C-alpha cells in the first residue's frame, strides 16, 4: 500500500504540487433491518478506493477512483493536478496549510467483540426477539428494528512524511415502535434511546434491547392518550438523549470556522458566531462549558488523526459561558479573520489545527466537520431527581425527534420522543404534541442547573450532513440532564 501511495505523492511532486496526500480506504457497512416477524433486508456493502489531493500554487485539486492500481493512481494524480491548474483561474485566496508534525503511526478504535464476526442470523434473531417483546404490549401494532455496523480502514500518506493507518468501527442498534388507535385514525411512535457508538458488538449486547422493548412499547401506547400540551413559556429539563442534538445544531455547527467565513454559504449556511464575538460573547450562563474532543473512547468522531493527518486533541469552545474558540482544520488556522479575532480577544496566536478534518469516503475531499462536542457536567453534586424536585412548572423531555435550525443558527425548534409534565417538583403525567423553540444564545443563557458527571452520557449521529457534494460525518455529544428556564413551548397538533 505504501508503494501505491508513493505513486501519487511522487506524481504530485513532479507535477509541481507544494503539498499532496492520498487516502486509500476500505469502507464496510453491514446492516440488518427487520419489522414485526420478518427480516426486511440483510446487506453487506464494501467500497474500496483512493483519493489524491494536491495543492498547486494555492489551489486544491482532488481526484479519486475505485481502481486501486498504479496506473489508476498515477492517472488520478494527473487529473487532480489538472483541476488545480484550471482552478487557479478562479483563485482569489490561495490556500495555505498550518504546519503539522509528520507521523508514522497506526491507530485502532477499541473493539472488544468484532461485530463482523457475529453471524447475521444471530443479529436477525436478536432483532426479531426485540420485535416480539414489543408486540406483546397491547396497542403496540408495528415495530421496525435495525443494526448497523460500519468499519472504516484508511491509509493516509502525505508529501510531508506522514504515513498513518487507522481502523475505526462504529455500531448502532435501534428500534421504533408504532402504536395505532384505528378508531380515531391516530398513531404515535417511540424510538429507543440507543445511540450509535464507536465500539464493537459489545455495544449491542450492552444495550439490553429485549429488556428495553416493553417500556418503549408501553410509552408509544401511552402517547396515544397523553394530554396535549398547553403552549406557553415553561422550564425544560432536558435529558442527554434529547440535549445531544440541541448541542449538535446550536453549538457544533455555529463553531465551524468554514461556515463563519462563508465557505458553506451555498448549502449548510453561515454562522451568527462572527469573529468579532470571539472572547467576548457570553454564549451561555456561567454553568455552561463546551469541550470539543476527538479523543474520548466511544465517540463517533474519535480517531487518532484527522483526515489532514493532524493528531487529534480536545479543547474548549465555550468556557464558563464565554465563547473562546472555533473548530479548525489546517487550512483554516492561517485565515486572517481567525488570526485577527484571536489577537483582538487577547488569545495566543494559533499555529496548529485542532484536527477537525474528515472525508466520508475515499471519493470525498476532506473538509471541516463537527467533532465530538460535549456540555461539561455540573461541578456541584446534583441528581436528576433533585433537579426535578426543584422545578415548579416544567416539562421533562427524553429522546430526540424533529429538529430544525436556521442557516445562521439563531432560531431553532426541537421536539423529543416522550414528554412529562413537572408540577411542584414532581413528574405528574405524560404530555404529547410538544416542541420547544428558542434562539441559541438566549437558550444557553437560560441554563440554570446541570446534573453532575455521574449522569453524563453521550448521544450521537452517523449522519451529520454538510458540504457539496454532501458528505455524512459521525459525531457524539455528551451532556448531563440540564434545566433551561422560561423556554417557548409549542403545541404541534394541527387539524387538516
Amino acid at each position: 500500500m505504501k508503494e501505491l501511495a508513493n505513486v501519487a505523492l511522487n506524481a504530485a511532486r513532479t507535477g509541481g504540487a507544494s503539498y499532496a496526500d492520498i487516502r486509500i480506504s476500505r469502507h464496510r457497512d453491514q446492516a440488518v433491518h427487520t419489522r414485526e416477524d420478518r427480516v426486511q433486508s440483510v446487506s453487506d456493502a464494501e467500497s474500496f478506493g483512493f483519493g489524491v489531493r494536491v495543492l498547486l500554487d494555492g489551489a486544491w485539486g482532488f481526484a479519486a477512483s475505485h481502481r486501486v492500481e498504479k496506473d489508476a493512481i498515477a492517472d488520478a494524480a494527473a487529473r487532480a493536478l489538472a483541476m488545480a491548474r484550471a482552478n487557479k483561474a478562479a483563485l482569489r485566496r490561495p490556500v495555505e496549510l498550518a504546519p503539522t508534525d509528520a507521523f508514522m503511526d497506526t491507530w485502532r478504535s477499541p473493539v472488544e467483540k468484532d461485530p463482523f464476526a457475529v453471524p447475521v442470523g444471530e443479529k436477525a434473531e436478536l432483532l426479531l426477539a426485540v420485535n416480539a417483546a414489543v408486540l406483546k404490549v397491547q396497542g403496540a401494532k408495528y415495530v421496525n428494528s435495525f443494526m448497523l455496523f460500519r468499519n472504516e480502514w484508511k491509509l493516509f500518506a502525505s508529501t510531508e512524511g506522514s504515513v498513518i493507518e487507522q481502523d475505526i468501527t462504529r455500531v448502532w442498534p435501534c428500534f421504533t415502535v408504532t402504536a395505532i388507535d384505528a378508531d380515531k385514525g391516530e398513531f404515535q411512535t417511540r424510538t429507543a434511546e440507543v445511540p450509535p457508538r464507536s465500539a464493537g458488538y459489545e455495544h449491542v449486547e450492552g444495550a439490553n434491547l429485549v429488556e428495553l422493548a416493553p417500556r418503549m412499547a408501553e410509552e408509544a401506547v401511552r402517547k396515544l392518550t397523553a394530554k396535549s400540551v398547553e403552549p406557553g413559556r415553561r422550564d425544560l429539563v432536558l435529558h442527554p438523549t434529547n440535549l445531544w442534538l440541541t448541542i449538535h445544531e446550536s453549538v457544533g455547527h455555529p463553531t465551524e470556522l468554514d461556515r463563519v467565513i462563508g465557505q458553506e454559504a451555498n448549502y449548510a449556511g453561515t454562522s451568527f458566531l462572527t469573529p468579532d464575538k470571539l472572547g467576548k460573547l457570553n454564549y451561555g450562563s456561567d454553568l455552561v462549558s463546551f469541550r470539543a474532543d476527538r479523543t474520548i473512547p466511544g465517540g463517533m468522531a474519535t480517531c487518532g488523526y484527522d483526515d489532514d493527518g493532524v493528531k487529534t486533541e480536545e479543547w474548549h469552545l465555550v468556557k464558563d459561558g464565554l465563547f473562546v474558540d472555533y473548530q479548525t482544520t489546517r487550512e483554516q488556522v492561517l485565515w486572517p479573520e481567525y488570526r485577527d479575532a484571536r489577537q483582538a480577544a487577547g488569545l495566543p496566536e494559533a499555529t496548529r489545527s485542532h484536527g477537525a478534518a474528515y472525508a466520508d469516503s475515499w471519493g470525498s475531499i476532506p473538509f471541516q466537520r463537527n467533532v465530538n462536542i460535549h456540555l461539561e457536567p455540573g461541578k456541584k453534586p446534583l441528581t436528576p431527581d433533585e433537579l426535578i424536585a426543584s422545578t415548579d412548572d416544567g416539562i421533562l423531555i427524553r429522546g430526540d425527534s424533529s429538529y430544525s435550525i436556521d442557516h445562521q443558527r439563531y432560531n431553532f425548534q426541537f421536539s423529543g420522543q416522550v414528554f412529562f409534565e413537572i408540577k411542584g417538583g414532581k413528574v405528574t403525567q405524560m404530555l404529547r404534541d410538544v416542541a420547544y423553540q428558542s434562539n441559541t444564545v438566549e437558550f444557553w443563557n437560560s441554563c440554570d442547573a446541570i446534573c453532575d458527571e455521574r449522569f453524563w452520557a453521550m448521544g450521537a449521529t452517523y449522519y451529520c450532513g454538510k458540504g457539496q457534494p454532501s458528505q455524512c460525518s459521525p459525531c457524539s455529544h455528551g451532556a448531563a440532564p440540564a434545566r433551561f428556564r422560561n423556554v417557548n413551548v409549542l403545541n404541534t397538533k394541527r387539524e387538516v
Partner: protein
Amino acid sequence: MILSEPQARDLIGKVLSLASADEVRVNLSGGRTLNTRFAVNTVSTCGDRDDLSIAVTAWFGKRHATASASETDDESLQRLVATAEEMARVAPEDPEYVPELAPQEYLPIRPWFESTAKAGSELGAEVARSAIEPAAERNITVAGYLEYGAAFRAVGNHKGIFGYYESTDANYSVTARTADGKGSGWASDNSRDIAELDYAAASARAIAKAEASQKPKTLQPGVYPVILEPAAVDEFLAYALWSMNARQADEGRSFFAKKGGGNKIGEKVVGENITMESDPTRKEILGAPFGGDGLPAKPYVWIKNGVLQRLFYDRYWAHKQGKEPTGWPSNLIFQGGKGTLDDLIAATEKALLVTRFWYIRSLDPQTILVTGLTRDGVFWVEDGAIRHAVKNFRFNETPIAVLSKVTGMSKPMRFENSLLPALRASEFTFSSLSDAV
C-alpha cells in the same frame, strides 16, 4: 467507471455464473462525476470521482441477503458472491418473499447527452469566474457549486431479466451575499444536458435577490398569503410525497390512511386545482426506465383535480392488495397555470414571496405538519409588484392545508427532477422570526 451495455451484460453474466443460490439478482452502477465549489469569491474545493458498484442479492428459498463491492477481479467477485450467499443461508425466512421478475419491456428512455459526458475538468473554474467577477464588481460575495457527470445502471437476474441505461446530469446553484451580510439571494439551474445550463443567468438572479433582500422589514409571525417559488414548492412537498406509500397508509400510519381502515384513494385530499403525475419519458426531466428490482417505470397520475388516484406500491404490497406495483417515481410533474412567475406576482393583491425553504423536518406525520425556515429572499408583494424585503420566518405548516388553498399558479418550471409551478396560496402559517440572513 461507465461500462458499456455489452460490458455490463458480460459482468452480470459472470457474476450469475459464480452463484449457486436459488435466485440471484445483480445490480451494477458507476460513473464519473466532476465538481467545483467556490465561496467568498474564490474557488475552494473540487473533485473528479470515478466509481463502480456491483451488488449481488441471493435467495435460498425465502431467505435473502445482499452484498456489494467495488472490485471486479475474479477473486473479489467470488468473494462477493460468497458473502451474499453465506448471509442469505443464515438469514431467517422472509414471509414477504416475492419471486424475481421475468424479463420486462422497458420504455425507450436514454437520459444521456454527449455535451455533459464530454465536459472537461476546466469547466468548474470557468463557471466560478462567471459568477465571481460580476459579483465582485457589485461588492457581493458568491458561493456556488457545479456538479456534472455521466453514469450507468444495469440490472440482471437468473431469470434473464436485463436492463441497462446511461445517464448524464448537471447541476448548478449559487448563493450571493452582500458584503455586510445583510442581503442574501439564491438561484439554481439543472439539466441532463449541460449545454442547457445558464450559469450566468442563475448567478445574476442570485445577485439581484441579494441586493433586493437588504433592509428587510419585520412582519409579525402569523398567517399570510404566499407565493412559493418552485424551489420552495419542491422542498415543502417532499414530506407529502414521502408519505404516499400505500402500505403505510393501509397500516394506518400516514395522512393517507382512512379512519377505521384502508386508505384515501378516491377521496379528495387537496384542492380541485391540484393535479400531480409522473412520466419518465417527459423530455425536460427524463427519468430512469426501471427501478432497482427491474420493475419498468411508467407514467402515473397520483392526484387528479384534488382526488387521490394512486399511492406508491412495492411489489409485495401490490401483490397482497391486488394492485399494480408502481415502484418509486423518478420524476414529478405538477400541473400549473399558463403565465410566468412575474405574471403571477402581477396578478397578486397581497402575498409573501418565498424564494426557498431550509431545514424542513416533520413535526406530525399524521397531518404532514412540518417545520422549516425561509431563506435567501422573502419579499412583500402588494398590488401586483414586489414592495420590500421581509425578515426570515420559521413556519409550522402542512402541505395538505396549503394545497387546499391554492389561488394561482405559474406554468411549471424544471427544478431538479420535477416540473413545478410557482404556487400562490391564501394562507400559510409562519410561527416565529429568524434573525438569519
